[in-house]
């Protein structure tokens, strides 16, 4: 129990008597009760701890500080402490405080220093990404020269893991996107009585842009992040080190199969996304705009050139490469703590989606200028 200390001033001598427990939980109150004592004037102090039933290290530290404070002010302090275990605790604190120095807080950096460090780290990050790409290409060259070196089993495994299992979610997402885009534009087109143009609109926007982007985003969120987390975890458990010491180059065993698997399957996934989004559009056109399926198909084969389809498909391998490379790069950047897995997984998704969109913009400009 925490009891307030009894404070008694006799002539020039102050008596403070503590009772009950002196612990982590009680010293805050006691400290408050003693706050005004410091304003008294006296030249001798007696601290009585004889009725203290329990003293922990925080309590001992409190006593030590109290004693130090008054001794500094040249007040004679007498401690009344009888219990031997409590004395031992106090002595432990005293010894420890003498030998340990105040811990130096981390040096605060100036704004200029922080900015410099930030940019330097970005620069180093860029260099290490380039290093990764360089290594990727040299390993590529070394391993692709011979068919024997290509790890078909791993590639097949990764195709199943990161593409075939993603089919459902990609089909569903793109179907919904087709539905939504068609629904929104149907409303506008109806106003002008331009119902049939929904086919042109859907065909071009889905084939050229929407399907590849949706697929890339889903794959980045699903497979790219998985790459980062898997490889990051392998780094923490030292599996990557074990592979290296056994002569299994991680680039050949982990990195290339994943990249190849995604590069192969991305165009197929985009194709699926194309079909599902068009299906969604077709349903809305049918219900909302009264365009029959035959009419939709006729118009479709009339206005949508095959090039639109190819433009979308061609982007696939590029997006796939970016997503896989960034995911793996982030996985390899994981340091020896668990926090860094989460950080790098998040980063991998953000960066790969960003990279995909930048790449898409470049393609868009290039294709338009080429007249495709």
């Amino acid at each position, binding site marked *: 129990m925490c009891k307030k200390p009894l404070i008694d001033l006799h002539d020039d001598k102050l008596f403070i008597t503590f009772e009950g427990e002196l612990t982590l939980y009680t010293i805050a109150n006691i400290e408050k009760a003693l706050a005004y004592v410091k304003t008294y004037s006296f030249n001798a102090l007696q601290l009585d701890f004889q009725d203290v039933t329990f003293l922990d290290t925080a309590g001992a530290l409190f006593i030590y500080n109290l004693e130090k404070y008054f001794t500094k002010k040249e007040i004679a302090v007498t401690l009344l402490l009888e219990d031997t275990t409590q004395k031992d605790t106090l002595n432990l604190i005293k010894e420890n405080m003498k030998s340990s120095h105040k811990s130096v807080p981390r040096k605060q950096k100036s704004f200029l220093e922080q900015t410099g460090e930030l940019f330097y780290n970005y620069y180093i990050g860029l260099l290490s990404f380039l290093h990764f790409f360089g290594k990727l290409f040299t390993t590529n060259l070394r391993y692709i020269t011979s068919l024997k070196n290509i790890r078909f089993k791993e590639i097949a495994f990764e195709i199943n893991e990161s593409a075939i299992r993603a089919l459902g979610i990609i089909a569903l997402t793109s179907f919904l996107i087709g539905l939504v885009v068609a629904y929104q534009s149907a409303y506008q087109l109806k106003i002008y009585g331009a119902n049939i143009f929904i086919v042109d609109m859907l065909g071009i926007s889905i084939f050229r842009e929407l399907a590849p982007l949706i697929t890339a985003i889903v794959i980045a969120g699903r497979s790219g992040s998985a790459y980062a987390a898997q490889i990051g975890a*392998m780094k923490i*458990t*030292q599996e990557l*080190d*074990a592979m*290296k010491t*056994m*002569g299994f180059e991680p680039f050949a065993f982990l990195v290339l199969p994943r990249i190849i698997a995604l590069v192969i399957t991305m165009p197929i996934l985009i194709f699926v996304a194309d079909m599902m989004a068009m299906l969604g559009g077709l349903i809305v056109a049918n219900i909302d705009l009264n365009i029959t399926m035959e009419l939709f198909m006729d118009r479709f084969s009339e206005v949508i050139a095959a090039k639109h389809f190819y433009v979308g498909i061609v982007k696939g391998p590029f997006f796939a490469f970016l997503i896989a490379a960034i995911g793996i790069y982030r996985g390899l950047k994981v340091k020896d703590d668990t926090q860094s897995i989460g950080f790098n997984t998040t980063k991998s998704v953000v960066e790969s989606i960003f990279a995909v969109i930048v790449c898409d913009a470049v393609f868009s400009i290039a294709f338009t200028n080429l007249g495709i």
Partner: protein
Amino acid sequence: MEFIKVRDVRTVLGDKIVHDGLNLTINEGEIYGLLGPSGCGKTTLLREMVLLQEFTSGSIELLGKRLETISERDAQSLRHQWGVLFQFGALFSSLTLKENVALPLIEYTELSEKMIDEIVRFKINLVGLKTEDANLYPSEISGGMRKKAGLARALAMDPKLLFLDEPTSGLDPISAREFDSLILKLRDMLGLTIVMVSHDLQSIYDTLDKVAIIDNKKIIYEGTLQEVTNVKNDFIESFFGKMK
């Protein structure tokens, strides 16, 4: 024959000097220990020996090959001649114990499936694991078993050199002593040369032939355990003092 020669190795990580001119020699058939206080760079040196980490200057010669200028082909051939046991086993978590041990054999040899199976079974029994454990995944077994399985994998290719990073840490005393006697048995049976990092005094006294003690970026002692207490050093006194 000198298996490993470390000469004037200096390692700088960031702005921290880890090693400042290390020299040591490990001969064939020795069980050699790297000791020292935590953070002195024992594991770093071990990682440098197995090509996981680069050192800043100096030279390490391993089985006659100089690591600082080694070609990829030579490095690959070295990797077939050593086995490494990591502190927590570092088994491939997507493979069963059996597959873990079999992996190097499948990758690097032309042996038949049946032969590989028999070799794996022998190695698993050798390290004291039961045959029925072979089909478990690393997540399904205890830390001690993982270490044993890691050792079985390190031994899969019948290496000349075995590197062990804290082989007995985290094991209960009985398993730790079993591990020690296993290591001695393996050395006598297979003629291995073993390099290990260890903190376990009992294990150090039971197994090591020679030690190198790293403290304050330098090797402060290299030699047998009997003479180690003649050296005046805080770490040696506090570490070995109790055993006198």
